């Protein structure tokens, strides 16, 4: 049975690849990304092994605990499109016990699972200073992988009933997205904070010692205890690790068994607020209707909501990080080089909100792809390409212009240099305009790929695929060339503040022209390519 399920999972993956050459490119990019992350882990552990062999085991315990937590969170985030959900087996006369091993192992099939296994093997570097911990760690690799897999399944199972309701599901996805977006920035911020407190090594050791006794880190705590030669602690932690795996298996197995006979029906959210103000501020024309629909979708569709949160959150997170780390760098610069103004504080107001605009890249290009085959309405109603593009651009302007202006004002306020506000606005609005324009113009040829409607925003297709990567390259190229005057004068305004007004004028002008051109070029392309675009976005991952 396990072999049958694994084969099923492999065939599903194979079919996805066979459907489109872009899928293969996407897989290659994902594999390269995973290899890159593995390379970083391996390099880090090698450096520690040579420079500070004692810190290696501590780092591995923290890393392992993070892996378990990561698996648990991602398990919840992608549970909406579980290809091997218990409900799918509900009609088969197969007891849960025979299904569970195969379902569990199939979770390891994929880039994430294989990368985790390789990462676990890589961590053996950290133990290689002594023989006993190395042997113990090697023997525990299967248990560690099992803990990761079970953590993903068990947490998703425990939350399954809440996730079945749309409101619960959407809320989980939003919280998860905030965590995911924050993680990349919070981790270095925390690490920096620890470093700032001094004595990083003893801190790391203390954290590792605590984690080693917890269920998430116990499987790595066993060899850590052996490093210290503490056999009693090693035994106790082994018991904790085994009990954890058993408990997770129990939670998941109970839920799986229950859902075989009482399937969870995904339910709706009932009535919604009409949001009549959206219709009132936007004209009752095809362009206005498309914009209004777009605004409603940003709020109601978690896939869009996650992107909108990203635009708003990115500048805030960078600002927060600047307050934690930037302040310190500034002080050091002041003390050592005598720079009157911290470099980050000087250009921060210009660059921080631009990062928010950068998040728009995935939104502008992929907007039609998010619609999937519902885009057929536009084709059937004879919506012109220009109307379609203009409606989408209007939606983005209504929604994101206030967010980006807010980010500009906020980051200027943090820096305390109000004379830089025009520069900040010029750089941000210019960049956003170029992204919207270029994204709208290229989307008829490169619509990209998105998660299917109702699927998890973090499930298959969430990377946007190879077309999105190509689109991002084109947009970056446009920003550094066409956007250079606005960005250049904005940064120069740090020293010559009057240039900020030049930046604002140039940014608004270039941004507006870019959007106008994007609507025209993209619209004309759409009029010729409606059926082809519809076919491309109807193909769901």
């Amino acid at each position, binding site marked *: 049975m396990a072999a049958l399920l694994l084969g099923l999972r492999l065939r599903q993956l194979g079919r996805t690849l066979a459907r489109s050459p872009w899928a293969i490119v996407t897989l290659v990019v994902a594999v390269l990304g995973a290899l890159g992350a593995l390379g970083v882990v391996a390099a880090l552990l090698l450096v520690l092994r040579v420079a500070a062999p004692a810190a290696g085991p501590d780092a591995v315990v923290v890393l392992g605990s993070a892996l378990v937590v990561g698996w648990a969170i991602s398990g919840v985030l992608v549970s909406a499109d579980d290809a091997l959900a218990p409900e799918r087996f509900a009609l088969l006369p197969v007891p849960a016990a025979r299904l569970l091993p195969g379902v569990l192992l199939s979770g390891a099939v994929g880039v994430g699972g294989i990368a985790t296994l390789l990462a676990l093997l890589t961590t053996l570097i950290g133990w290689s200073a002594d023989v006993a911990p190395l042997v113990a760690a090697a023997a525990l690799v299967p248990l560690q992988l099992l803990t990761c897999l079970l953590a993903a399944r068990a947490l998703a199972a425990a939350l399954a009933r809440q996730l079945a309701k749309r409101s619960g599901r959407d809320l989980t996805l939003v919280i998860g997205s905030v965590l995911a977006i924050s993680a990349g920035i919070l981790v270095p911020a925390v690490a920096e904070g620890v470093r700032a407190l001094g004595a990083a090594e003893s801190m790391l050791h203390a954290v590792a010692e605590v984690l080693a006794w917890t269920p998430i880190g116990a499987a790595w705590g066993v060899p850590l205890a052996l490093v210290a030669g503490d056999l009693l602690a090693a035994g106790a932690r082994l018991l904790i690790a085994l009990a954890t795996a058993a408990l997770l298996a129990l939670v998941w197995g109970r839920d799986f068994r229950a859902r075989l006979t009482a399937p969870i029906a995904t339910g709706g959210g009932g009535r*919604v607020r009409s949001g009549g103000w959206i219709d009132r501020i936007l004209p009752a024309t095809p362009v206005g*209707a498309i914009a209004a629909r777009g605004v409603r979708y940003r709020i109601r569709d978690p896939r869009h909501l996650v992107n909108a949160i990203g635009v708003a959150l990115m500048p805030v997170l960078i600002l927060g990080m600047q307050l934690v780390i930037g302040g310190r760098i500034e002080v050091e610069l002041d003390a050592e080089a005598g720079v009157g103004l911290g470099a980050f504080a000087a250009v921060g107001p210009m660059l921080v909100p631009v990062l928010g605009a950068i998040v728009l890249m995935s939104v502008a290009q992929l907007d039609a792809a998010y619609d999937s*085959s519902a885009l*057929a*309405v536009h084709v*059937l*109603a004879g919506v012109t390409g220009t109307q379609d593009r203009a409606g989408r651009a209007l939606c983005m302007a209504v929604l994101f212009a206030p967010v980006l202006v807010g980010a500009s004002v906020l980051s200027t306020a943090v820096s305390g240099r109000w004379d830089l506000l025009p520069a900040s606005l010029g750089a941000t609005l210019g960049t956003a305009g170029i992204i919207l324009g270029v994204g709208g113009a290229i989307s008829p040829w490169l619509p990209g790929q998105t998660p299917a*409607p109702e699927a998890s925003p973090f499930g298959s297709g969430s990377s946007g695929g190879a077309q999105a990567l190509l689109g991002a390259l084109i947009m970056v190229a446009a920003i550094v060339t066409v956007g250079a005057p606005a960005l250049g004068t904005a940064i120069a305004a740090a020293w010559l503040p009057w240039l900020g007004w030049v930046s604002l004028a140039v940014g608004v002008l270039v941004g507006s022209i870019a959007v106008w051109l994007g609507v025209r070029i993209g619209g004309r392309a759409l009029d010729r390519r409606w059926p*082809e675009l519809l076919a491309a976005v109807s193909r769901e991952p």
Partner: protein
Amino acid sequence: MPDTVLALRGLTKRFGQQVAVDGVSLDVPAGSMLGLLGPNGAGKTTTLSMATGLLRPDAGTAFIHGVDVWADPAAAKARMGVLPDGVRMFDRLTGAELLRYHGLLRGMPEADVVSRAGELLEALGLADARSTLVIDYSAGMRKKIGLACALIHAPRLLLLDEPFEAVDPVSGETIRQILRGFVASGGTVVLSSHVMELVESLCDRVAIIAAGRVLAAGTLDEVRQGQPLQRRFLDLVGTHALGTESLSWLRSS
């Protein structure tokens, strides 16, 4: 012979090696209701997609009131209302919002959209669900809201792919009344279906498609040739006779 409202001319579509639609030509006169019949995979949906501008044909074209769908799509699309099958809807809108969206996309004045949307929701029994997201509608309710979307701009030609699928008998009767009234006032309907009795009772013209070709087309009586439609359909399409030995294990257990 009255005006031809919909004329298909040699529509052909290949998917890879497979020919899905193979030179389909068909005339639908004004004021008629045509039932498009065919087994699964016959090419009904593909044909309708090419006739409505959703799928570019490899060869051939379609004319709506003499306007070429693929030469002047805007003028052709303005004249028809379409209920597509197997296509998603913007289902994170409520029923009322979705109707408004369709109306405004068609360039209708807002006041007309609002009043017609209210009437359509009322007529199709969706008034209670007007503030519910379409994603939470049942399959039959989705068909009904899709039909309402196809009707809102008062087209003179309706192309409906499986309009009665999953619709309960009460709503089905409402839809029949709407369609009969529409045709009586000079409108034209093309609908696809698998239910022979429904087509026999509702349509005055029939076209039978199999393996991407038109096997028979004309008035109901011309196609039936004195037999029940079911019998005639099976004769044309060819039944798949079961041998005495096939599935014998199913009878022995």
